């Protein structure tokens, strides 16, 4: 191993970065903007997924209990229900409580004093961990002894699942588009920096450098520019998360934002990797364009 060569190589990369500082800074800026946009959208998408997950846990299955059941088995029934796969929470609502709730619900709209008899059964209110499990849970509960009937907002569940599916597909499409856009912007930027040095590339060839020898420093520069740009973008994103999200959470109280820092770490690493990779690929291709003899 000739350490002198390694030193020369690193020195060359560093020298090119600093001697073309204005150009490199411009390139890094463009990379940062592209990656920040991509990162922002990925973050929004992840937040939205978390939020919708949380919101959808509100959808309930109501199990109406038979009046003729063995009342002593109720606690066992509740336990068995809670143990069903996918169930997040089970609440027992007696017929008395149910009437009180209904009265509250209808107050003002209906003269509730007219409701003198109690037409309601005892009810188990069951929440699922994921909407997708709701139909299966309803079926399982219906089979339990003591359960007269089971009800849930079947139409709403269907609708929500449709929406979620569509949102996922649209989100994926947007991400693919944004990834393409970021790639385009980064590779265009690097292509221009290489373009401005095409004369240098031609001279290197004339002096006897192989294509790989010429490429290597450019690729190293692309990697450095790409990852520095990504680092700037990630710093912006982390700062935004720390400074803006709490303010935003106060403003928009109906969305439970995940505000813990760890959320962004894997995303940040992915973005850094993407920046470096795109930088390398873009340099490779761009230099190749001027290497054809």
């Amino acid at each position: 191993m000739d350490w002198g060569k390694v030193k020369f190589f690193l020195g060359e990369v560093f020298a090119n970065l600093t001697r073309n500082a204005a150009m490199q800074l411009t390139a890094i800026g463009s990379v940062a903007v592209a990656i920040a946009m991509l990162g922002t959208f990925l973050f929004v998408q992840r937040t939205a997924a978390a939020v919708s997950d949380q919101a959808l846990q509100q959808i309930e299955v109501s199990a109406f209990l038979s009046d003729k059941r063995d009342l002593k088995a109720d606690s066992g029934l509740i336990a068995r229900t809670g143990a069903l796969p996918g169930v997040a929470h089970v609440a027992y609502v007696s017929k008395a409580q149910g009437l009180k709730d209904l009265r509250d619900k209808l107050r003002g709209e209906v003269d509730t004093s007219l409701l003198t008899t109690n037409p309601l059964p005892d009810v188990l209110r069951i929440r699922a961990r994921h909407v997708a499990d709701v139909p299966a849970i309803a079926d399982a509960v219906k089979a339990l002894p003591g359960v007269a009937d089971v009800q849930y907002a079947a139409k709403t569940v269907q609708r929500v699942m449709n929406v979620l599916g569509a949102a996922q597909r649209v989100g994926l499409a947007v991400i693919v588009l944004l990834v393409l856009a970021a790639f385009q912007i980064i590779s265009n930027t690097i292509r221009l920096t290489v373009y401005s040095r095409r004369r240098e590339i031609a001279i290197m060839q004339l002096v006897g450098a192989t294509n790989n020898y010429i490429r290597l420093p450019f690729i190293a520069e692309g990697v450095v520019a790409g990852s520095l740009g990504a680092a700037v973008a990630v710093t912006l994103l982390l700062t935004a998360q720390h400074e803006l999200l709490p303010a935003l959470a106060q403003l928009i109280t109906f969305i439970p934002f995940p505000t813990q820092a760890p959320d962004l770490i894997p995303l940040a690493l992915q973005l850094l990797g993407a920046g470096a990779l795109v930088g390398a690929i873009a340099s490779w291709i761009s230099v190749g364009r001027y290497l054809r003899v």
Partner: protein
Amino acid sequence: MIELRNVSLLYPNGVRALDAVDLKIEKGEFVFLVGHSGTGKSSLLRLLYREQVPTTGDVYVDGIAVHRMRAGAIPRLRRNVGVVFQDFKLLGGKTIWENVAFALQVTGARTKDVMRQVPRCLDLVGLAQKSRMFPSELSGGEQQRAAIARALVNNPKILLCDEPTGNLDPSNTTEIMELLQRINTKGTTVVVATHNQAVVDRMRKRVVRLENGRIVGDEERGFYFLGLGQGQVLSG
């Protein structure tokens, strides 16, 4: 060492720079290439390090059929052929030291050798003091000498010099020509395209004369003499 057989070169814009040129240069020769401006001297040299491919005809350099070599083999050819370009072609982003070192590094030379050879060559052309400067910080003649140093640094088998003294004063010119002669004595084939009548007339080497892309003269121990008396008007 160098052989051109019935070589013609037609540029894309329609200019016929070389026209049925036959030329043979043996290993260890020292050859001057003379002719009016735009007559094809640089074009001829470009064929020898494969910057240009002949439109028709064969070009052999150091036993290689340059006119039909594959792209991957070009760097190896160019490492054996040192070139002083008419427009210098220094890398503006590198210092003089780095420019000269680059030509050695591409050959895969050991760092130890780079550290020894580069200062030696810069010293030969009188640029030891300016090695840390960038080309834009040098005078025209200094840039030209840097280009010469770069062409010498990896001890090429063939040295092609395109107007190597156009920006040098007579004393520097003498020194550079003596340097080329010493290198030639050690076995390197040297081809110099030049307009410098004094140099050609003093050194009395083989002179190949081009006119409109054709070879119109080839003399051992020749003089510069171009066309009808024009050269003599100036020598007075």
